[in-house]
Protein backbone atom coordinates (compact mmCIF):
# COMPACT_ATOMS: atom_id res chain seq x y z
CA UNK A 1 0.00 0.00 0.00
CA UNK A 2 1.47 3.34 -1.02
CA UNK A 3 1.26 6.61 0.87
CA UNK A 4 -1.54 7.93 -1.35
CA UNK A 5 -3.63 4.79 -0.96
CA UNK A 6 -3.01 4.80 2.77
CA UNK A 7 -4.19 8.39 3.25
CA UNK A 8 -7.33 7.88 1.19
CA UNK A 9 -8.13 4.69 3.12
CA UNK A 10 -7.40 6.48 6.40
CA UNK A 11 -9.74 9.34 5.44
CA UNK A 12 -12.45 6.85 4.52
CA UNK A 13 -12.12 4.91 7.78
CA UNK A 14 -12.02 7.99 10.03
CA UNK A 15 -14.71 9.98 8.19
CA UNK A 16 -12.34 12.90 7.52
CA UNK A 17 -11.27 14.56 4.29
CA UNK A 18 -7.94 13.48 2.82
CA UNK A 19 -6.31 16.84 3.68
CA UNK A 20 -7.51 16.60 7.28
CA UNK A 21 -6.25 13.04 7.50
CA UNK A 22 -2.86 14.10 6.07
CA UNK A 23 -2.59 16.98 8.54
CA UNK A 24 -3.48 14.74 11.48
CA UNK A 25 -0.94 12.16 10.30
CA UNK A 26 1.76 14.86 10.26
CA UNK A 27 0.77 16.01 13.74
CA UNK A 28 0.77 12.42 14.92
CA UNK A 29 4.33 11.85 13.70
CA UNK A 30 5.48 15.08 15.39
CA UNK A 31 3.82 14.07 18.62
CA UNK A 32 5.34 10.59 18.39
CA UNK A 33 8.84 12.02 17.91
CA UNK A 34 8.43 14.52 20.74
CA UNK A 35 7.24 11.97 23.25
CA UNK A 36 9.83 9.38 22.23
CA UNK A 37 12.60 11.97 22.45
CA UNK A 38 11.40 12.60 26.02
CA UNK A 39 11.98 8.86 26.68
CA UNK A 40 8.27 7.98 26.76
CA UNK A 41 6.67 4.96 25.12
CA UNK A 42 3.66 5.56 22.91
CA UNK A 43 1.10 2.82 23.32
CA UNK A 44 -1.60 2.28 20.70
CA UNK A 45 -4.20 -0.02 22.17
CA UNK A 46 -4.48 -3.48 20.55
CA UNK A 47 -1.77 -2.49 18.08
CA UNK A 48 1.60 -2.06 19.77
CA UNK A 49 4.06 0.32 21.38
CA UNK A 50 6.58 2.69 19.87
CA UNK A 51 9.65 3.16 22.03
CA UNK A 52 13.08 4.70 21.97
CA UNK A 53 16.18 2.75 21.03
CA UNK A 54 19.59 4.28 21.61
CA UNK A 55 22.42 3.18 19.38
CA UNK A 56 25.85 3.72 20.84
CA UNK A 57 28.84 5.05 18.94
CA UNK A 58 30.58 2.46 16.78
CA UNK A 59 33.56 2.12 14.53
CA UNK A 60 33.16 1.11 10.90
CA UNK A 61 35.89 -0.04 8.52
CA UNK A 62 35.89 0.95 4.87
CA UNK A 63 37.64 -1.86 2.99
CA UNK A 64 38.34 0.22 -0.13
CA UNK A 65 39.99 3.16 1.63
CA UNK A 66 41.17 0.91 4.52
CA UNK A 67 40.20 3.57 6.98
CA UNK A 68 38.22 3.48 10.16
CA UNK A 69 35.32 5.79 10.59
CA UNK A 70 33.43 6.62 13.74
CA UNK A 71 29.68 6.37 13.45
CA UNK A 72 28.26 8.67 16.12
CA UNK A 73 25.65 7.57 18.63
CA UNK A 74 22.08 8.02 17.46
CA UNK A 75 18.51 7.37 18.46
CA UNK A 76 15.93 5.28 16.71
CA UNK A 77 12.32 4.18 17.10
CA UNK A 78 11.32 0.58 17.62
CA UNK A 79 7.87 -0.96 17.38
CA UNK A 80 6.71 -3.94 19.38
CA UNK A 81 3.39 -5.44 18.48
CA UNK A 82 0.86 -6.15 21.18
CA UNK A 83 -0.19 -9.71 21.99
CA UNK A 84 -3.71 -8.91 20.73
CA UNK A 85 -2.29 -8.00 17.33
CA UNK A 86 -0.20 -11.18 17.33
CA UNK A 87 -3.34 -13.24 17.91
CA UNK A 88 -5.19 -11.26 15.25
CA UNK A 89 -2.50 -11.91 12.68
CA UNK A 90 -2.45 -15.61 13.62
CA UNK A 91 -6.24 -15.76 13.25
CA UNK A 92 -6.03 -14.13 9.84
CA UNK A 93 -3.56 -16.79 8.77
CA UNK A 94 -5.77 -19.60 10.03
CA UNK A 95 -8.79 -18.21 8.16
CA UNK A 96 -6.72 -17.98 5.00
CA UNK A 97 -5.59 -21.58 5.44
CA UNK A 98 -9.17 -22.78 5.98
CA UNK A 99 -10.38 -20.94 2.89
Amino acid at each position, binding site marked *: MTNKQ*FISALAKNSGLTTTEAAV*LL*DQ*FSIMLVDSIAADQTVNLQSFGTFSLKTKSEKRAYNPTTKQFKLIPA*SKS*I*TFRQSSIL*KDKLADGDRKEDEA
Partner: protein
Amino acid sequence: MKKISTAAIAEQLSQMAGMNKKTTESFIRAFVETVLTGVSQDGVVKIKDFGTFKAVNVAQRESVNVVSGERFTIAGFNKLSFTPDVTLLAMLNSVSAETTDTAPATTDEEPEEETPTAEPDPIPTPTPEETIVPEAEAAPVAAVIDESVAEEPLTEVVEESVEVSDEPVAEDETEPVAVSDEPAEITADTTPTAMAPADVKSGSDVKKWTSLILAIIVVVAVVAFAWPKQTDNEPQAQLEKLAEIAQTQPQPQPAIDQADEPKRKVHILQKGESLTTISVYYYNTKDSMQAIWKLNGFKDPNNIPLGTEILLP
Protein backbone atom coordinates in the same frame (compact mmCIF):
# COMPACT_ATOMS: atom_id res chain seq x y z
CA MET B 1 9.96 5.27 31.31
CA LYS B 2 6.51 6.82 31.06
CA LYS B 3 3.80 5.22 28.96
CA ILE B 4 1.34 7.26 26.91
CA SER B 5 -2.03 5.65 26.36
CA THR B 6 -4.27 6.00 23.32
CA ALA B 7 -6.57 8.42 25.17
CA ALA B 8 -3.63 10.67 26.06
CA ILE B 9 -2.43 10.59 22.45
CA ALA B 10 -5.92 11.60 21.26
CA GLU B 11 -6.03 14.49 23.72
CA GLN B 12 -2.55 15.72 22.79
CA LEU B 13 -3.39 15.45 19.08
CA SER B 14 -6.61 17.40 19.52
CA GLN B 15 -4.67 20.20 21.22
CA MET B 16 -1.98 20.24 18.54
CA ALA B 17 -4.30 20.12 15.53
CA GLY B 18 -7.10 22.17 17.09
CA MET B 19 -9.64 19.42 16.49
CA ASN B 20 -12.28 17.63 18.48
CA LYS B 21 -11.02 14.85 20.75
CA LYS B 22 -13.61 12.50 19.27
CA THR B 23 -12.22 13.13 15.80
CA THR B 24 -8.65 12.41 16.87
CA GLU B 25 -9.74 9.24 18.67
CA SER B 26 -11.48 8.01 15.55
CA PHE B 27 -8.37 8.98 13.57
CA ILE B 28 -6.17 6.78 15.76
CA ARG B 29 -8.60 3.88 15.47
CA ALA B 30 -8.72 4.37 11.71
CA PHE B 31 -4.91 4.51 11.61
CA VAL B 32 -4.60 1.13 13.29
CA GLU B 33 -7.35 -0.35 11.15
CA THR B 34 -5.91 0.96 7.90
CA VAL B 35 -2.41 -0.29 8.69
CA LEU B 36 -3.76 -3.75 9.50
CA THR B 37 -5.91 -4.00 6.37
CA GLY B 38 -3.03 -2.68 4.25
CA VAL B 39 -0.60 -5.19 5.71
CA SER B 40 -3.04 -8.07 5.28
CA GLN B 41 -3.71 -7.03 1.66
CA ASP B 42 -0.27 -6.14 0.33
CA GLY B 43 2.04 -7.16 3.12
CA VAL B 44 3.56 -3.65 3.21
CA VAL B 45 2.22 -0.21 4.16
CA LYS B 46 4.45 2.71 3.31
CA ILE B 47 3.69 6.02 4.99
CA LYS B 48 5.62 9.05 3.80
CA ASP B 49 7.82 10.75 6.42
CA PHE B 50 6.69 8.19 8.98
CA GLY B 51 7.88 4.70 8.14
CA THR B 52 7.03 1.32 6.73
CA PHE B 53 4.91 -1.39 8.34
CA LYS B 54 5.65 -4.84 7.06
CA ALA B 55 4.27 -8.28 7.85
CA VAL B 56 7.08 -10.68 8.62
CA ASN B 57 6.62 -14.39 9.04
CA VAL B 58 8.71 -15.86 11.82
CA ALA B 59 9.19 -19.51 11.00
CA GLN B 60 8.77 -22.27 13.57
CA ARG B 61 11.94 -23.36 15.31
CA GLU B 62 13.21 -26.04 17.62
CA SER B 63 14.29 -25.38 21.14
CA VAL B 64 15.35 -27.32 24.23
CA ASN B 65 13.77 -27.22 27.64
CA VAL B 66 16.68 -26.30 29.91
CA VAL B 67 15.26 -28.14 32.94
CA SER B 68 14.11 -31.44 31.39
CA GLY B 69 16.34 -31.42 28.30
CA GLU B 70 13.38 -32.22 26.02
CA ARG B 71 13.28 -30.82 22.53
CA PHE B 72 10.18 -28.94 21.48
CA THR B 73 9.13 -26.67 18.63
CA ILE B 74 8.18 -23.04 18.94
CA ALA B 75 5.34 -22.39 16.53
CA GLY B 76 5.82 -19.89 13.74
CA PHE B 77 3.89 -16.63 13.86
CA ASN B 78 3.36 -13.43 11.96
CA LYS B 79 4.97 -10.26 13.16
CA LEU B 80 4.30 -6.67 12.26
CA SER B 81 7.62 -4.90 11.85
CA PHE B 82 8.11 -1.16 11.63
CA THR B 83 11.03 0.62 10.00
CA PRO B 84 11.09 4.34 10.78
CA ASP B 85 11.54 6.72 7.87
CA VAL B 86 14.80 8.68 7.50
CA THR B 87 12.88 11.94 7.99
CA LEU B 88 11.37 10.68 11.24
CA LEU B 89 14.79 9.61 12.54
CA ALA B 90 16.33 12.94 11.55
CA MET B 91 13.56 14.70 13.44
CA LEU B 92 14.13 12.50 16.49
CA ASN B 93 17.89 13.05 16.49
CA SER B 94 17.57 16.81 16.01
CA VAL B 95 15.03 17.03 18.85
CA SER B 96 17.23 15.01 21.22
CA ALA B 97 20.31 17.05 20.19
CA GLU B 98 18.50 20.25 21.16
CA THR B 99 17.52 18.87 24.55
CA THR B 100 21.03 17.55 25.35
CA ASP B 101 22.85 20.66 24.12
CA THR B 102 23.43 21.95 27.64
CA ALA B 103 24.98 18.76 29.01
CA PRO B 104 28.12 18.57 26.81
CA ALA B 105 28.75 22.28 27.36
CA THR B 106 29.32 21.70 31.05
CA THR B 107 31.53 18.68 30.48
CA ASP B 108 33.70 20.64 28.03
CA GLU B 109 34.47 23.27 30.62
CA GLU B 110 35.71 20.86 33.26
CA PRO B 111 38.91 19.75 31.53
CA GLU B 112 39.88 23.38 30.97
CA GLU B 113 39.83 23.99 34.68
CA GLU B 114 41.95 20.93 35.34
CA THR B 115 44.71 21.86 32.91
CA PRO B 116 47.15 24.49 34.16
CA THR B 117 47.30 26.38 30.84
CA ALA B 118 43.84 26.47 29.32
CA GLU B 119 43.61 27.05 25.58
CA PRO B 120 41.76 30.27 24.84
CA ASP B 121 39.92 28.99 21.74
CA PRO B 122 36.82 27.32 23.22
CA ILE B 123 36.14 30.21 25.65
CA PRO B 124 33.71 32.70 24.08
CA THR B 125 34.45 35.71 26.35
CA PRO B 126 38.04 35.62 27.50
CA THR B 127 39.10 37.60 30.56
CA PRO B 128 42.09 39.95 30.36
CA GLU B 129 44.44 37.41 31.94
CA GLU B 130 43.40 34.79 29.44
CA THR B 131 43.94 37.07 26.48
CA ILE B 132 47.59 37.25 27.47
CA VAL B 133 48.00 33.60 26.52
CA PRO B 134 48.02 34.13 22.73
CA GLU B 135 50.46 37.00 23.21
CA ALA B 136 52.78 34.81 25.16
CA GLU B 137 52.61 32.27 22.36
CA ALA B 138 53.64 34.94 19.91
CA ALA B 139 56.15 36.55 22.26
CA PRO B 140 58.89 33.88 22.10
CA VAL B 141 59.73 35.22 18.64
CA ALA B 142 60.64 38.52 20.22
CA ALA B 143 62.47 36.88 23.12
CA VAL B 144 64.86 35.06 20.81
CA ILE B 145 66.15 38.27 19.21
CA ASP B 146 68.54 40.81 20.83
CA GLU B 147 67.45 42.60 23.96
CA SER B 148 67.38 46.01 22.37
CA VAL B 149 65.27 44.77 19.50
CA ALA B 150 63.04 42.77 21.80
CA GLU B 151 62.11 45.98 23.54
CA GLU B 152 60.50 47.34 20.41
CA PRO B 153 56.99 46.10 21.12
CA LEU B 154 56.97 48.08 24.34
CA THR B 155 57.68 51.44 22.71
CA GLU B 156 55.39 50.63 19.88
CA VAL B 157 52.70 50.21 22.48
CA VAL B 158 53.44 53.64 23.84
CA GLU B 159 53.04 55.23 20.46
CA GLU B 160 50.06 53.29 19.27
CA SER B 161 48.13 53.29 22.50
CA VAL B 162 48.02 57.06 22.32
CA GLU B 163 46.18 56.71 19.08
CA VAL B 164 43.87 54.11 20.53
CA SER B 165 42.98 56.21 23.55
CA ASP B 166 42.23 59.14 21.22
CA GLU B 167 39.66 57.19 19.31
CA PRO B 168 37.08 55.74 21.73
CA VAL B 169 36.06 58.54 24.17
CA ALA B 170 37.17 62.12 24.69
CA GLU B 171 39.35 61.51 27.74
CA ASP B 172 41.83 64.34 27.30
CA GLU B 173 42.94 64.36 30.90
CA THR B 174 43.70 60.68 31.05
CA GLU B 175 45.74 60.60 27.87
CA PRO B 176 49.05 61.84 29.23
CA VAL B 177 48.67 59.58 32.26
CA ALA B 178 48.09 56.66 30.01
CA VAL B 179 51.19 57.41 27.98
CA SER B 180 53.44 57.81 31.00
CA ASP B 181 52.14 54.75 32.85
CA GLU B 182 51.96 52.33 30.02
CA PRO B 183 55.34 50.66 30.44
CA ALA B 184 54.45 50.12 34.08
CA GLU B 185 51.13 48.59 33.05
CA ILE B 186 52.80 46.12 30.78
CA THR B 187 54.97 44.93 33.61
CA ALA B 188 51.88 44.88 35.80
CA ASP B 189 50.57 41.97 33.77
CA THR B 190 53.45 39.86 34.96
CA THR B 191 54.45 41.19 38.40
CA PRO B 192 51.82 41.29 41.13
CA THR B 193 53.57 44.13 43.00
CA ALA B 194 53.09 46.50 40.08
CA MET B 195 49.36 45.79 40.09
CA ALA B 196 48.97 47.19 43.62
CA PRO B 197 48.67 50.92 42.78
CA ALA B 198 45.98 50.26 40.20
CA ASP B 199 43.91 48.27 42.65
CA VAL B 200 43.92 51.03 45.28
CA LYS B 201 42.04 53.46 43.01
CA SER B 202 38.33 54.09 43.24
CA GLY B 203 35.62 52.15 41.29
CA SER B 204 35.37 54.56 38.33
CA ASP B 205 39.15 54.68 38.02
CA VAL B 206 39.31 50.91 38.12
CA LYS B 207 36.91 50.72 35.18
CA LYS B 208 39.03 53.16 33.21
CA TRP B 209 42.16 51.25 34.08
CA THR B 210 40.67 47.92 33.11
CA SER B 211 39.53 49.34 29.77
CA LEU B 212 43.00 50.86 29.31
CA ILE B 213 44.68 47.55 30.16
CA LEU B 214 42.40 45.79 27.69
CA ALA B 215 43.29 48.32 25.00
CA ILE B 216 47.00 47.88 25.76
CA ILE B 217 46.72 44.12 25.60
CA VAL B 218 44.99 44.32 22.22
CA VAL B 219 47.64 46.70 20.93
CA VAL B 220 50.47 44.49 22.25
CA ALA B 221 48.89 41.52 20.47
CA VAL B 222 48.62 43.50 17.21
CA VAL B 223 52.21 44.72 17.51
CA ALA B 224 53.49 41.24 18.32
CA PHE B 225 52.03 39.95 15.07
CA ALA B 226 52.92 42.94 12.91
CA TRP B 227 56.33 43.57 14.48
CA PRO B 228 58.66 41.80 12.01
CA LYS B 229 57.40 43.96 9.13
CA GLN B 230 57.69 47.20 11.07
CA THR B 231 61.30 46.69 12.16
CA ASP B 232 62.51 47.14 8.58
CA ASN B 233 60.96 50.59 8.24
CA GLU B 234 61.86 52.06 11.61
CA PRO B 235 64.38 54.87 11.81
CA GLN B 236 67.62 54.60 13.77
CA ALA B 237 66.54 57.22 16.30
CA GLN B 238 63.69 55.06 17.48
CA LEU B 239 66.02 52.13 17.95
CA GLU B 240 68.24 54.25 20.20
CA LYS B 241 65.27 55.27 22.31
CA LEU B 242 64.32 51.66 22.63
CA ALA B 243 67.78 50.76 23.80
CA GLU B 244 67.55 53.44 26.50
CA ILE B 245 64.24 52.14 27.73
CA ALA B 246 65.61 48.62 27.69
CA GLN B 247 68.40 49.68 30.02
CA THR B 248 66.08 51.43 32.46
CA GLN B 249 63.57 48.58 32.68
CA PRO B 250 64.43 45.02 33.64
CA GLN B 251 62.99 42.52 31.18
CA PRO B 252 60.11 40.52 32.64
CA GLN B 253 59.03 38.86 29.40
CA PRO B 254 61.00 35.60 29.62
CA ALA B 255 59.19 34.91 32.90
CA ILE B 256 55.83 35.18 31.14
CA ASP B 257 56.97 32.85 28.42
CA GLN B 258 57.96 30.14 30.84
CA ALA B 259 54.76 30.44 32.87
CA ASP B 260 52.30 30.62 29.99
CA GLU B 261 53.87 28.12 27.63
CA PRO B 262 51.13 25.62 26.67
CA LYS B 263 51.72 22.32 28.42
CA ARG B 264 49.78 19.39 27.04
CA LYS B 265 48.81 16.65 29.42
CA VAL B 266 50.24 13.30 28.47
CA HIS B 267 48.71 9.97 29.32
CA ILE B 268 50.72 6.76 29.10
CA LEU B 269 48.62 3.93 27.73
CA GLN B 270 48.16 1.08 30.20
CA LYS B 271 46.86 -2.41 29.61
CA GLY B 272 43.10 -2.59 29.14
CA GLU B 273 42.74 1.08 28.22
CA SER B 274 41.38 2.52 25.00
CA LEU B 275 41.08 6.04 23.64
CA THR B 276 37.42 5.97 24.66
CA THR B 277 38.17 5.04 28.27
CA ILE B 278 40.86 7.75 28.40
CA SER B 279 38.34 10.25 27.01
CA VAL B 280 35.77 9.24 29.61
CA TYR B 281 38.40 9.36 32.39
CA TYR B 282 39.61 12.88 31.63
CA TYR B 283 36.55 14.56 30.09
CA ASN B 284 33.61 12.47 31.35
CA THR B 285 32.46 11.93 27.78
CA LYS B 286 33.22 9.52 24.96
CA ASP B 287 32.96 12.37 22.45
CA SER B 288 36.55 13.54 23.01
CA MET B 289 37.88 10.19 21.78
CA GLN B 290 37.86 11.46 18.20
CA ALA B 291 39.78 14.60 19.20
CA ILE B 292 42.44 12.51 20.97
CA TRP B 293 42.63 10.22 17.96
CA LYS B 294 43.11 13.11 15.53
CA LEU B 295 45.61 14.93 17.77
CA ASN B 296 47.87 11.90 18.05
CA GLY B 297 47.39 10.82 14.44
CA PHE B 298 46.97 7.11 15.14
CA LYS B 299 46.05 5.03 12.12
CA ASP B 300 44.12 2.42 14.06
CA PRO B 301 42.82 3.55 17.46
CA ASN B 302 42.32 -0.06 18.55
CA ASN B 303 45.90 -1.06 17.90
CA ILE B 304 48.15 1.23 19.94
CA PRO B 305 51.19 -0.28 21.66
CA LEU B 306 51.24 -0.25 25.46
CA GLY B 307 53.19 2.59 27.04
CA THR B 308 52.51 4.98 24.17
CA GLU B 309 52.41 8.59 25.30
CA ILE B 310 49.02 9.96 24.34
CA LEU B 311 48.67 13.72 24.10
CA LEU B 312 45.43 15.06 25.51
CA PRO B 313 43.66 17.95 23.80
